């Protein structure tokens, strides 16, 4: 069976600086893959390329057997709204909207009715243990609570692929565990593929397997041995 999402020979440069130097990557339905490595190894760039936020300079990104690198910006953007969920280290909630409005936003953008979107959003806030904050604006709640709302927002459309970039980087250990636990549950119950970028071994341990990067290439040892600089 072909993987749900894969990248082959991915190359991406920032000006003269190479960030990815030929990476192969694949994730299957319901699988959680941790992308690990030290700062600057290319893990966030890989996530951006796989999710279609960035275009690659060479190589192909294949989603459900289609080369999404050939798609227009609008088509990739639509894909991110409907089939992909993205979660960053700092929730990036819209400050003017309440928690429930933030979580409902992806559903409204995808064409759901207002009442239905609100009901589903409330359900997800409840799953993340922050239902009581539904009517609060981001400025009035803690960083950990904001991140749980952002997790609800990333999962509310029941995406086929969740991209999580250091999702617990700004959280205390126990709040981080709650967020990771929910991500694992969604992957198991709904078959969501998860690309989990982290530099922490403790977080990577939630994944089924690890792809370690070093200097823009895959590092099979996880310790940077045998990787040409």
């Amino acid at each position, binding site marked *: 069976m072909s993987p749900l999402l894969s990248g082959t020979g991915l190359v991406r440069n920032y000006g003269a600086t190479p960030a990815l130097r030929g990476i192969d990557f694949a994730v299957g339905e319901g699988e959680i893959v941790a992308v690990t490595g030290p700062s600057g190894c290319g893990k966030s760039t890989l996530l951006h390329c796989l999710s279609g936020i960035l275009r690659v300079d060479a190589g192909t990104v294949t989603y459900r057997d289609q080369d999404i690198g050939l798609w227009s910006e609008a088509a990739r953007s639509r894909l991110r709204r409907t089939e992909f969920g993205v979660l960053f280290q700092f929730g990036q909630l819209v400050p003017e909207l309440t928690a429930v409005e933030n979580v409902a936003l992806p559903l409204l953008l995808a064409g759901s009715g207002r009442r239905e979107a609100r009901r589903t959003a409330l359900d997800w806030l409840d799953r993340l243990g922050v239902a009581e904050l539904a009517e609060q604006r981001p400025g009035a709640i803690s960083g950990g609570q904001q991140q749980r709302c952002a997790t609800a927002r990333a999962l509310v459309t029941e995406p086929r692929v969740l991209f999580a970039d250091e999702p617990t980087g700004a959280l205390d250990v126990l709040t981080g565990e709650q967020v990771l636990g929910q991500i694992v549950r969604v992957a198991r119950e709904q078959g969501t593929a998860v690309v989990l970028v982290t530099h922490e*071994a*403790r977080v990577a341990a939630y994944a089924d397997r*690890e792809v370690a990067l070093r200097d823009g290439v895959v590092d099979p040892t*996880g*310790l*940077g*041995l045998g990787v040409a600089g």
Partner: protein
Amino acid sequence: MSTAHVLLGLLAGGPRHGYDLKRAHDDRLPRAKPLAYGQVYATLGRLERDGLVSEAGQDREGGPDRTSYEITDDGRQHLDTWLSAVEPPAPYVTSELFSKVVVALLAADAGRARDYLVAQRAAHVSRMRELTTAKSEPEASVGDVIAADYAIGHLEADLRWLQTTLTRVADLQKEVTS
């Protein structure tokens, strides 16, 4: 770890016989090495000799040896002293991991030490994943979670040590072979 103190702690709640103590020990300390029956009785024998527990009666219904034990006043005092004492952080740095790196350099070379570090990392990562899965199971008890947390924290520290040691292998080799 002191099995004697755990048994005293279990007896602090009331008399129990050996079989019961073994089961309670394994339940309360999940992921510890299960206690052997022989060890339970040997430990109870020592505690009785030292006056920290005493026989509380016989129950012949459930099997051949169903002697119940209870904690004595001296036993409670002993337990209290143990609970109040801070464990000294390990005075010596002894670790099989550390020894292997040094011996690899003595007996072979830096390549051998690096190969070992890489293989050890893979084993640690795999064990960490196993423990993380176990503690995330819906049926995991609080005891399971706390036991796994303890092990995960130590594995994480080892992983950081493996990473930094790798960068120092060449320097260590110079020191070891000079």
